[in-house]
């Protein structure tokens, strides 16, 4: 599905990512977990070609290496959601969601059908479709951002701290909704977060990075808690309040 080989990323003398070797399992939700500065967001941007890795590294998506040249079209098969949603304030919900479909020349009937499907999937009331982003709540904005990411029916969904800016109640509701949606879709999903609770709740597979931009451990939350590969794993987990039943 998605394979990252020998990924380094250096800014000046600062190594953000260090010797990353990673295989993302298909149709599962993978979490890129780590503290601030561990390079997890950089890694996500390398996957969809927004950033190029240092020479020698490669990203292969469905057997095609991602290059600077093909990145733009490859992104049509990867949905992308960022923290604040990245919705364009001059476009309505509908226009935001359908931007790429219209850009690629879909006919109106097909576009409208898809919008209706997705609105139902993300549980967005129909009257929200013609509002502008500034007229919506943070949670609604993220639902629309997800609609936009799913519009072209991508094979891979990338979410960069999608719930980071939301208050705990809305966050919790959205976490549950996201889990349902991912299960329903059966797509390969990669989520960047620093929240272990969120990682454990949404993720089938967790990849933990340390502050040097290295992968420390990969596995389920149980494995990270009970069989830590490195003292950093325990240190990182203990630094957060994790669900009681999982605590050692």
């Amino acid at each position, binding site marked *: 599905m998605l394979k990252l080989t020998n990924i380094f990323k250096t800014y000046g003398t600062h190594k953000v990512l260090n010797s990353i070797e990673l295989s993302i399992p298909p149709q599962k939700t993978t979490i890129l977990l780590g503290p601030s500065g561990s390079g997890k967001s950089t890694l996500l941007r390398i996957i969809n070609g927004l950033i190029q890795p240092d020479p020698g590294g490669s990203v292969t998506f469905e057997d095609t290496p991602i290059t600077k040249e093909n990145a733009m079209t490859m992104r049509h098969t990867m949905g992308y959601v960022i923290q604040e949603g*990245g919705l364009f304030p001059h476009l309505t919900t509908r226009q935001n969601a359908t*931007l790429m479909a219209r850009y690629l020349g879909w006919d109106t009937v097909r576009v409208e059908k898809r919008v209706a499907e997705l609105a139902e999937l993300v549980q967005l009331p129909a009257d929200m479709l013609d509002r502008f982003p500034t007229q919506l709540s943070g949670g609604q904005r993220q639902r629309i951002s997800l609609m936009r990411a799913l519009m072209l029916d991508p094979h891979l969904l990338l979410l960069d701290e999608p719930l980071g800016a939301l208050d705990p109640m809305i966050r919790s509701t959205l976490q549950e909704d996201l889990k349902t949606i991912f299960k329903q879709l059966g797509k390969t999903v990669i989520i960047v977060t620093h929240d272990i609770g969120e990682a454990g709740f949404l993720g089938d597979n967790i990849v933990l990075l340390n502050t040097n931009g290295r992968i420390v451990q990969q596995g389920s939350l149980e494995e990270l808690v009970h069989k830590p590969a490195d003292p950093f794993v325990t240190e990182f987990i203990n630094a957060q309040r994790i669900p009681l039943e999982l605590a050692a």
Partner: protein
Amino acid sequence: MKQILLLISLLLGLISSFAYADTPIVKIGSKNLTENVILSEMVVLLAKHHNKGAKHWRELGGTAVVWRSLLRGDIDIYPEYTGTILKETLLDKNLKSFEQLREFLKTIGLELTKPLGFNNTFALGMKRTLAKKHGINSISDLRQHANLRFGFSNNFMARNDGWKGLRIKYRLPQQNVRGLSHELTYQGIENDALDVTDTFSTDAEIAHYGLRVLKDDLEFFPRYEAFFIYRADLKQKAPNVVAELHKLEGQISDPEMIRMNMQAKINKVGETQIAANFLAEKLNIYAAVVEKSLLSSLYTLTLEHLLLVSISLFAAILIAIPLGIVAYKYTQVGQIILGVVGLIQTIPSLAILVFMIPILGIGNAPAIAALFLYSLLPIVRNTYTGLHEIAPGLKESAEALGLDPFAKMQLIELPLASRSILAGIKTSAIINVGTATLGALIGAGGYGQPILTGIRLDNMSIILQGAIPAAVLALLIQFLFELSERVLVPKGLRITR
């Protein structure tokens, strides 16, 4: 898009209607001097009397402008003075006499009439009461009064045969010497802000303000005898007119010219009427003087002004927005672009206008070109800033969706920067309305024309005929732009958060 196309076709229509208007047979220029305007009006009346179309570019911005226009053929004729052409314009030719001047001009395709009679030389003047108090009769007497405040017209300050040479010849010690517009020097004297100023010996104000003209005891000032200078081909185009002009040689005495200047400045008689009266008296030619109504002249001035503003602004929009985009996309080129358009803004407007004349002549073209250059900065800068200040998350989203750079600019970045770009266009438009009044200095007409005339004649009501519509137009444009924001700025950006 449709509206833009409509706008373009309207503008093109407007331009062509101006471009294909009847080209006049006799093209007359005048300097920004009342006397000069009156003499040129005589030519206009003579041309019309002989059924030749005539156009008079009134009160052009100085000798350099009329002279260059004559050489280019933008005008056929204007009134000039012996001192100016011998000691200033053609100084390097070292011509000694009127006959030598005639010989030289022939070689460059120009001809002239003999002097018309009067000598409008420079002179220094001061209030009679003040002169009496200090016992000053001649320019030499000024040496003893180093504290007197001198205020000279800008033209006089800069000329070899003006203050520069005078100071050396008379060894004048005064340090407090200011340059200002000729029309304002008399007001300075009247309000006791100045003690001594330059005057023209035919100025109406000498008597009106009670000035004593100081004797040029060292005979520094050359003679300034007025004559008409014209392109040789005018004789073929309008032989009768040229013949009549030659009949005016030696016909205008000093007192007659002073009287005509007085009528214009003090009695507020129109220059055309004064010229007509004189022709009736001297040549028995009775020309009908059609005074334009205030409303019809306002209409013409508005059309002229709108033409200058709209074409220059439209061209600036077409060029400046792409320049702003380039500046945003390529940082290094961008710094150069922003630097150059900023530099243009610092060049004085009159300098740009005069600089354009050899390339574009007089009239609309150089004025539009200058206004275009001045309109660039606000639009380029606001386009650049507007694009630059888009939230990084939005730029990243646009890219992450897989839009190509062109679509990203068209669908996302330009709409997001639209408010800033529009504000830049608005700034340019409003500045443009003001700057376009300078177009009158090079024959482009517009609201600047009555302002120039009013300043020249010291007539506030004429100044206001240009100043008020210009202010109203600026307000109107501001209002229109605020309305257009509702159409051009996407709704989502106008909703308050």
